[in-house]
């Protein structure tokens, strides 16, 4: 659905991405894993049209497209790493506002908001100001806000970072449901359990290049040995250290 070819990004002479090629298929949950400073957040920024690449191209359904242009921006959704909502507005107000800014009329925005607020199981708390929500509730709302305009692909930047296990499971559950609905998902994460559990395809990004990509089973298989005993964390450490050495 979305492909990236030879993507490079340079900041003041420092190369953050050095020719990245990835393909995200429709309905696929694509995980980008890598150590700190590997270029994951830069990838998300380019893929959500916030910054332009230095080189390379982004293709939507096989056609090259400028991620900064509106046609592209409207098919992507974003769940940023940091808290991202108006804390002094209610969950419903946050959702309706985004709907309005995506061009819905007040009725459409309210209906879509209601649909999502039930989907994330916050219908009862929907009229409370979001700053009083727990971190898990806030993250569910953040996910719903990213889905407000029914994007075809949603980018999540470390979506469960800092959540307790229950809140994390509830996000995973929502992501599974999204995937089942045929929505493409792109996740960056540090959490190997999350990558293994949620993603159907992974790319290991190290120092701005994709070291390996494939299904979690394929990545683990690259280490050799008993596939039941090898963990994704072993593979992550192996591939990131190789480049480090």
């Amino acid at each position, binding site marked *: 659905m979305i492909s990236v070819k030879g993507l490079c990004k340079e900041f003041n002479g420092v190369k953050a991405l050095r020719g990245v090629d990835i393909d995200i298929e429709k309905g696929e949950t694509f995980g980008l894993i890598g150590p700190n400073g590997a270029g994951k957040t830069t990838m998300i920024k380019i893929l*959500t*049209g*916030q*910054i332009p690449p230095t080189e390379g191209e982004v293709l939507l359904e096989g056609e090259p497209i400028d991620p900064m242009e*509106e046609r592209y*921006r*409207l098919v*992507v*959704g*974003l769940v*940023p790493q*940091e*808290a*991202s*909502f*108006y*804390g*002094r*507005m209610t969950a419903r*107000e946050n959702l*309706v*506002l*985004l709907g*309005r*800014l*995506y*061009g819905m009329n007040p009725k459409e925005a309210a209906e879509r908001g209601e649909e999502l607020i039930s989907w994330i199981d916050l219908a009862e708390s929907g009229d409370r*100001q979001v700053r009083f929500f727990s971190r898990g509730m806030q993250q569910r709302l953040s996910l719903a*806000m*990213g889905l407000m*305009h029914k994007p075809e692909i949603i980018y999540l930047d470390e979506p469960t970072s800092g959540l307790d296990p229950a809140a994390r499971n509830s996000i995973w559950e929502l992501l599974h449901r999204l995937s089942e609905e045929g929505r493409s998902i792109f996740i960056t994460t540090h959490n190997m359990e999350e990558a293994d559990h949620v993603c159907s395809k992974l790319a290991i990004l190290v120092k701005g290049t994709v070291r390996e990509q494939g299904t979690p089973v394929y990545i683990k298989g690259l280490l050799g040995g008993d596939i039941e005993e090898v963990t994704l964390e072993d593979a992550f450490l192996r591939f990131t250290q190789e480049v480090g050495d």
Partner: protein
Amino acid sequence: MKGWWALLSKDWRIIVRNRLLLVILIIYPFLIMGVIGAAFYDIGRPVPIGLVNLDRGDTGDLAWVGGEAESPDDMRRHLHYRAEEIAEFEEGDEALAALTAGEVDVLLVVSRTDKSLEWLGAIIPQDVWEDLLWDLESETGVVRHYAHAGEALASLEEGENNLLMALRTVDYPYLGESLWLEGENYDASGLVKRFSQDVSDIKEYASVSQAREDLKQGRVDAVIVLPRGFVHKLKTLEEIAYVPVILDQSNLVKAEFAETSIRGFLSRINEAVVESKMEAVIAGLRILVSGGDFFGTEIVGLAQVQEDLERIRQELEGRPDLQQTVDIGIDMADTVSENVEEAAEYLRATALPIELEISSVAGRTLSAKDAVVPALIALSILWTGILSGAILMVVEEEEGMRMRLRLTQMGRFALVGSKLVLATAVVFIQSAVMLLIAVAVFGAFASNIPLALLVIAAASFSAIGIGLVIAAFARQVAGAVILSVLVAFPLIFLTGAVFPLSQMPDFMQWIARAVPLTYAIEALSGVMLRGEGLVDVAWRIGVLIAFGVGLLAIGSILVRRREI
């Protein structure tokens, strides 16, 4: 414009649901401008002045005068020179008893360097009082008068004086005299009270020390001491009446107000005295011509002399030589009469050659209350404009919403523009309400309210521009508030709202010209107080809008640079 309303209502909700923002942006400006407005509301009230009248007959049996001489020995020599007899006393009580009993006419108290006192008594002829007081004044420069022995002696103890003279009040010739002025008879304090009406609120004290204490406590703003002989000097005009005034210069504005007030009423007394003296002189000159009572003496008058000469001339008919001599006399009398009349006219014209005729460019007299309103509104615009501009622009940064909003259909223009519209509306409505309250409730003067509102709109835009630039340096609302206050505070002093621009050094005036609110205050006072029209203030409105556009551009560039 789709989505603009959603953006506007979102930002408005954020302001009203955040108590800090609600107070800072909406409530605080009304409070602070209300406080400043209230402070200026009744300005021009009479200044409280303490009055100590030492020119009174009922302050005690003895009168005290003192001063600080460079060489006290010289004064001792003067006393020896003037006195018929000198007595030295060991103790002060003994000396005072001798003075009270009439054994001596005057006491000279000299403070030695070790602070011990030397008491000299003297018997002096009645006609050398003046000379002796003159000696004291010439040796000390300033003569201080005291109503009580304790106060006088304390001045020696405190080192304020090193010489004192004491004399019996019955002998002191000019005590408690009164002056006939403008149809009334005044003593010293009556004179001050009469001429300080409206400008000063006079509070009388029995002694300088009491008045000085109240000055320190802030109960009066200055103390004026009317010295002994004050009225006498006004009556005779032989000497200048030096009037000691004590100011509290720890508060310069208060001291300035008090001094101006005192100078004002003393000058009015001066004028009235000179005028009445001049009237007397003119009347006297005319009596020289017409004849009559001249200060108790019956004057024949030149007119009578002329009549007599005419009669003599007629009686000398047949003696042309003598008639010719008499004619010369008549001519001379004519000339003198004319000269006297001219002199009288000349004196009348030159007695007080200058008189102010004050008018206002507003075409009506303005009060401090009227004059302060434009400055208050400009300050409110400055405050709310900078803060609302800065705060609204960092809301998305603080809430992590910037990236999300950039993905929506709303372009950068709408995201920034909606904030500009809201901030301008907040500042404009707030300032307009302030203006209407000032006019409708407090009766402030504003000659052209619609044009004032136009200036307010332009000024709001430029103040918000400053806020946008500040926003580029802040990532959180709290940071934006702090930065805004740091910027707004010095700007308040640079706008001419607090100090007149003309009183600032040249380089400060140049800096003030770079502050948009300077133009806002000038334009607002122009349209509200000076009756200026659109043509007069158009260029200032243009400057304000240009500032706004320029600052908006700078702010946008800075924010964009930060994002990449």
